[in-house]
């Protein structure tokens, strides 16, 4: 079985995230890391591998600049078998449409060497763009059944079952592999790399692809090819600190009630 797990390298959410003058996300000036929500995807991929009979290869795939290799290295340390990083200057500023195109081509290329992917596992959303568009677009492009926002995943042979907490109902989704699967943070904590894992990762293969390797024309990706344009980005003014009172014998509730009344909430 072949599993491709998508790992995005994102600016650290606890740092000061910002935009460049061309309104693209600043991916260089801010420290980056493996998107927290993709750790859950790596964890599920590894659990599926561990439970499966027979050989399973887990390939961690990322599109990003050179330093995005860190996201792949983390996945390899956790236990993925090999990594593929797609790097090309032309990709900078790509939207979800172009990202999903390059990911689809890379997944096809990985299939040439490994055999076709039985499972493509992604996070529920990236922690920077956070649109959740890429998984749905990728399912559309690859013609795969879409099993997304899974909070519990079970596989048996070529069958997959996933629980999905929808807006109006909790559903169980079923499909036959190959499948595109996206998982939420409800699937369970991701493992930490062990010392052994960290050492082993150094010897695992990490391949680099360019757009030319994938047969993607540079004109199809990047900021200029995006199907949407950001016209303006504005930092929200930080919230100004409000009044804080310490409750003593009911004074807190009283003060709060007065505040709510002054704002016409009661």
């Amino acid at each position, binding site marked *: 079985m072949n599993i491709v797990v998508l790992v995005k390298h994102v600016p650290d*959410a606890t740092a000061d*995230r910002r935009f460049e003058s061309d*309104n693209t996300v600043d991916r260089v000036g801010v420290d980056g890391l493996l998107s927290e929500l993709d750790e859950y995807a790596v964890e599920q991929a590894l659990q599926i591998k561990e439970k499966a009979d027979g050989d399973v290869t887990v390939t961690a795939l990322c599109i990003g600049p050179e330093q995005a290799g860190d996201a792949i290295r983390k996945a390899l340390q956790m236990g993925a078998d090999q990594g593929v990083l797609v790097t090309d200057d032309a990709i900078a500023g790509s*939207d*979800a*449409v172009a990202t999903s195109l390059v990911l689809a081509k890379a997944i096809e290329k990985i299939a040439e060497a490994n055999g076709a992917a039985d499972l493509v596992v992604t996070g529920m*959303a990236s*922690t920077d763009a956070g*649109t959740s*568009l*890429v998984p*749905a*677009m990728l399912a*559309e492009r690859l*013609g795969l*059944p*879409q099993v*997304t926002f899974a*909070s519990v995943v079970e596989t048996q042979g070529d069958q997959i*079952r996933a629980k999905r907490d*929808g*807006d*109006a*109902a909790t*559903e169980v*989704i*079923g*499909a*036959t592999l190959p499948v595109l699967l996206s998982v939420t*943070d409800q699937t369970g904590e991701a493992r930490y790399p062990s010392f052994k894992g960290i050492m082993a990762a150094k010897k695992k293969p990490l391949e680099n692809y360019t757009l030319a390797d994938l047969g993607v024309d540079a004109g199809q990706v990047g900021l200029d090819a*995006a*199907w*949407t*344009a*950001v*016209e*303006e980005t*504005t*930092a*929200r003014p930080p*919230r100004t600190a*409000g*009044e*804080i*009172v*310490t*409750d003593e014998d*009911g004074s*807190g*509730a*009283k*003060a*709060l*009630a007065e*505040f*709510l*009344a002054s*704002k016409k*909430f*009661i």
Partner: protein
Amino acid sequence: MSEILVLVDHVDGNVRKTTNELLTIARRLGEPSAVFIGSGEAPVEALKKFGAEKVYAVDDAEIKGYLVAPKAEVLAQLAEKCSPAAILIPSSAEGKEIAGRLAIKIESGVITDAVDVADSGVTTQSVFAGSFTVQAKVTKGTPIITVKPNSAAPEEVAGAGALEQFAATISDGAKTAQIVASQPRQATGRPELTEAAIVVSGGRGTGGDFTAVEALADSLGAAVGASRAAVDSGWKPHAFQVGQTGKVVSPQLYVANGISGAIQHRAGMQTSKTIVAVNKDEEAPIFELVDFGVVGDLHTVLPALTEAINERKG
């Protein structure tokens, strides 16, 4: 004027408020055509009331049991037929996924989570956990925009509401992810979390007892929310979770009780108009965001507050 397709958000034919908001926004851009995918009679009257000039009814008998993909095919075929000037979709998880697939099918740009759409088609979004506001526009094809709840005040304007049945052709490929079981969410009798004007939330500090949080919510006519710590402890279902991996809410008033204010929680609430917190730790980061904060035990502050509110209501 060109048509604007609006995907109707409904539960068993009952139109949700978000649909009225989308119809209101659609009128800024052109003539709203509501797309009702469901069974039974289309709720034409409800849709007309908020300005739907046309109602396309698509019988979902054949596609009900499948996830997302068939609905994207329906919209792609409708778009082909009526060449709309834009397509508006509710910004739920499913809505965004439909939008993503549709974008690839009809080769059009997509913008998600808009909190406003101007008549020029320029959208406003809130990004990076609410720390930036972004203005954007679709530059290719038919703009596909998913719109968040509470993005417009619904305006009642009578539309023609001309009903048209639309028979879509659904491919076998779209019917590969099957919904094998479905459990409707239990009605709470309270407002919907993402639509509510007031949200009262509880975190680990409740110790698992949400009685005081719920009583306060009811005195304010508010929805109840929870932190992930409260959800992970099994005190509330995931549908109540506010934050990065739960619901993003933007009410007039948000009341955080026994919630420390972790960045992932902030991501779901920091665009609220007014923020209030009750926490016994004066160092809790939530106090950096509040308009008013009480350092105290929620188990004593909330019941007293609830009583004071109920008294004022007389």
